[in-house]
C-alpha cells in the first residue's frame, strides 16, 4: 500500500516536472532564437535556419553603430536611473501614510489611486502630453526633448504605491510604539526603521520600474524630437521599415537591449520573488 502511494507520488512528480520543463523550454526558445539570429546573416534569417553556419560578430558592431546604440543605451540607463529613484522615493512617501497613518478619507484616497490602474495608458497620453507641453512653455527649464518629460510623469506609480502599502501594513505596531517611546516621529520611523526592512519590496518596485522604463517606446517618441534623449527602444525601431526588416541586426540590437534587464534581474531575483509574495500576504 505504502509503495503504491510512493510510486503514485513519483509519477505525479514526474508529470509535474515534465510539464514545468516543457513550459521552461517554451519560454526560453524565443530568447535562444533571438541570440542565434543575432549571429546569422540576413539570408540565414530568411531561410530560417536553426543556427548560423558562421558567427557574425559584426552584426553587433553594425547594430551599435548604425542605430546610434551608444547614445540610446546611455540615455536609457540615465532615464531608468532617474525614473527608478523618483518612483521609489515618491511611492514610498505615498504608501507610508496610506499604510501607517490614520486620517479622514485615507481609504478613499487609496481606492482612487487603485482605480487609476484601470485607465489604459493611451487614454492618459494626450492629457499628459498637454501638461508636459504647458510645463515646457512655462517652466525655467525644458521639459520636451529633455529628461523631465521622460521621467517625471512616471514617478507616481499606482502599482508601486499599492505594493509598498501592502508590505508596510505588515510592519508590527510594536515597532512604531517602540520608536515613539524613543521620540521618533513618522519621518524618522520611516527612514531609520522601516526603510531597512523594505529591501525586498523596494527592489521589486525598482525592478518593475526599470523594465517599464527600459521598454518604453510610445511616450519617448511623443516627447522627443531628436536622438539626444531617445531610449534604446527607438534604436530597435529603426531596423524595421515599411518594406522589410533586417532581422539579424534587429536581434543583435535586441540582445544588447536585453542584457541590462537580465543582469538586474539576476542580481535581485531572490528579493524580487520575496517582494511579490509579501505583497499578497496582508490586505
Amino acid at each position: 500500500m505504502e509503495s503504491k502511494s510512493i510510486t503514485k507520488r513519483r509519477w505525479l512528480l514526474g508529470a509535474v516536472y515534465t510539464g514545468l520543463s516543457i513550459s521552461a523550454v517554451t519560454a526560453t526558445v524565443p530568447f535562444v532564437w533571438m541570440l542565434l539570429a543575432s549571429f546569422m546573416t540576413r539570408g540565414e534569417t530568411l531561410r530560417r535556419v536553426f543556427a548560423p553556419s558562421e558567427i557574425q560578430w559584426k552584426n553587433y558592431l553594425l547594430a551599435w553603430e548604425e542605430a546610434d546604440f551608444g547614445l540610446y543605451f546611455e540615455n536609457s540607463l540615465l532615464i531608468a536611473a532617474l525614473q527608478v529613484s523618483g518612483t521609489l522615493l515618491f511611492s514610498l512617501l505615498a504608501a507610508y501614510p496610506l499604510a501607517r497613518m490614520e486620517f479622514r478619507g485615507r481609504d478613499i484616497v487609496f481606492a482612487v489611486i487603485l482605480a487609476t490602474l484601470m485607465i489604459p495608458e493611451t487614454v492618459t497620453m494626450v492629457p499628459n502630453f498637454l501638461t508636459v507641453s504647458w510645463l515646457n512653455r512655462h517652466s525655467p527649464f525644458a521639459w520636451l526633448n529633455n529628461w523631465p518629460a521622460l521621467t517625471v510623469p512616471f514617478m507616481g506609480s499606482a502599482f508601486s504605491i499599492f505594493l509598498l502599502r501592502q508590505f508596510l501594513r505588515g510592519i508590527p505596531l510594536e515597532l512604531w510604539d517602540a520608536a515613539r517611546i524613543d521620540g521618533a516621529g513618522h519621518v524618522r520611523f520611516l527612514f531609520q526603521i522601516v526603510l531597512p526592512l523594505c529591501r525586498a519590496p523596494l527592489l521589486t518596485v525598482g525592478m518593475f520600474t526599470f523594465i517599464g522604463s527600459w521598454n518604453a517606446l510610445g511616450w519617448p517618441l511623443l516627447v522627443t524630437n531628436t536622438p539626444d534623449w531617445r531610449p534604446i527602444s527607438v534604436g530597435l525601431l529603426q531596423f524595421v521599415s515599411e518594406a522589410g526588416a533586417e532581422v539579424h541586426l534587429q536581434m543583435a540590437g535586441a540582445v544588447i537591449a536585453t542584457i541590462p534587464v537580465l543582469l538586474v534581474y539576476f542580481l535581485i531575483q531572490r528579493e524580487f520573488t520575496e517582494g511579490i509574495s509579501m505583497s499578497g500576504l496582508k490586505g
Partner: protein
Amino acid sequence: MNKNITRLAIGAGLMALTYLVACGEAERSTTVVVDIEQVDPSSQEVVFWYQHSRQREEALVELIEEYNRTNVHGIKVRGEYMGGYDDIYNKMSVAIQGGTLPQLVVAYQNQALAYFEADGVVDIAPYMRSKKWGLSAAENADFIQAFLQQDNNKGVQTGFPPNRSMEVLYYNVDWLKELGYARPPVTWDEFADMCRKAKAQPFSKSTDKEHSLGFFLELDASRLATMVFTRGGDFMNADKTAYTFNTPQVRQALQLMQDLIREKAVDIVSERYMDQQEFGVGKALFALRSTSGLPFFKSAVADGLDFAWSVSAPPRQVDDPVVNVYGASLSLCRTTPAQQLATWLFVKWFTQPQQQARWARASNYFPVRKSTANELKEYLAENPGYAAAFKLLDYGKSEPAVQGYQGVRKMIADAMVDIAEGGDLDDVLSNLERQANKTLERF
C-alpha cells in the same frame, strides 16, 4: 457597504473625468487670408518629421544639408525621425491639440485629410499656383498628374508627393522556366495555373520541397486593391461618395483566392514579411509587394538561393497594365505664413528632377517628375527590376484618399480573413460595404 459604494462611485467618476479631458476638442483657429506673394520666407526654420531611418535617412539628411547650404533665402531645414507612419500620426494628433507642430510632415492621404479637418495642415494649392513662388506651367506638366491628384480632395491639396511606390508582381524566373513558362503571367487565369503547377512541382533549388506553392497572400487592403484595379474595378464609386465592394471585380478577385487557398496553391501570410522570406527561399513562385521592397528581395534572394528573378505588372483582366500606386506625401503644417512658404520652397526644391534622381537612387522610391528619367539612365541600366517597374508609372491607380479609409482598410483585411476561411462572398462583401459606408457618414 456604503463605504464601498462611495469608493466605487469616486473611482468611476474619476475615470469618466479622465475620458472627458482626454477627448476634449481642440479649438479651431480662425483662418487669416494672407497674400503669399508678399510673404518673406527668409531665415525661417523648417522642422521636418519623417519615418526614414538608417541609409534612407542619411541620404535625406545629405539633401537637407545641401538645401540649407545653397538656398538663397537662408532657410534652415531640420529633419527629425519620428518612428513609423502610425507613430507620426499619433504624434501629430497629439501635437495638433498641444500646439507644437512641425512645419513639414510625412502623411498618407487619409491622415493628411484628418489633419486638415483638425486645422493642422494647410491647402498647398495656393502655393503651387503662386506667380512668384509656385510651379510654372512646364513644371506642373512635368509632374505625373495621377500622383498630384491623389492628394487633392475636392480642390484642396492636402499633401504634395515627394516620391511614390507601386505594387508589382515579383516572380522567380528560374522556377517559371522549370514549369515550362518563358514569361510571367499576364492574366489572372494564367497566374492561377502557374500557382497550381508550382504547388505540384517544387523549385529545384528549394531546400524544403514539401512546402511549395504559388503565392502567399497578405491579408491587406492594398493587395486586394491591386487585384480589383487590374480587373477594371475600384473600391469607390466614380464621385467618391460611396464604397463599392459588392462588385464583380471584387468578387472575382476574392473567389479566385478562395479557390486557390482551398487547392493549397496559395496560402495566407501569417507573419510580417513572410511572403518575402518564402519567395527568397524558393517556396513561393510569386510575391505581390511594393517596389520599395526591391532591395529587400534582392538581398533575400542573393543571401538565399541566388536564383534569377524579376518584377512585372500584376496580372490583369483589362487591356493595359494597371498598378496600385501609393506612398505618403508631404503636408505643410499650419504655422506662420513665413514658415509655411519656406516649407513650400523646400518641398518645391526637393521635387526638382536632380534631387528626385538622387532620392530615387538612395531610397528606391519612384520619382514624381517625368523628366527625372533623364537623370536616372545609368541607375535604370544597373537595376533591371527597378527599370521594369519604372515603365509602369503611367499606369498608376490609387486607393481611396478619403477620411476614415484607414479604418476601412482594417475592415477589408478582416473580410479577407473571412473569405480565406471559406466565408460566403455575398454575406461578407455586403457587410463590408455597409460597414465601410457608415464611416463616410461620420465625416
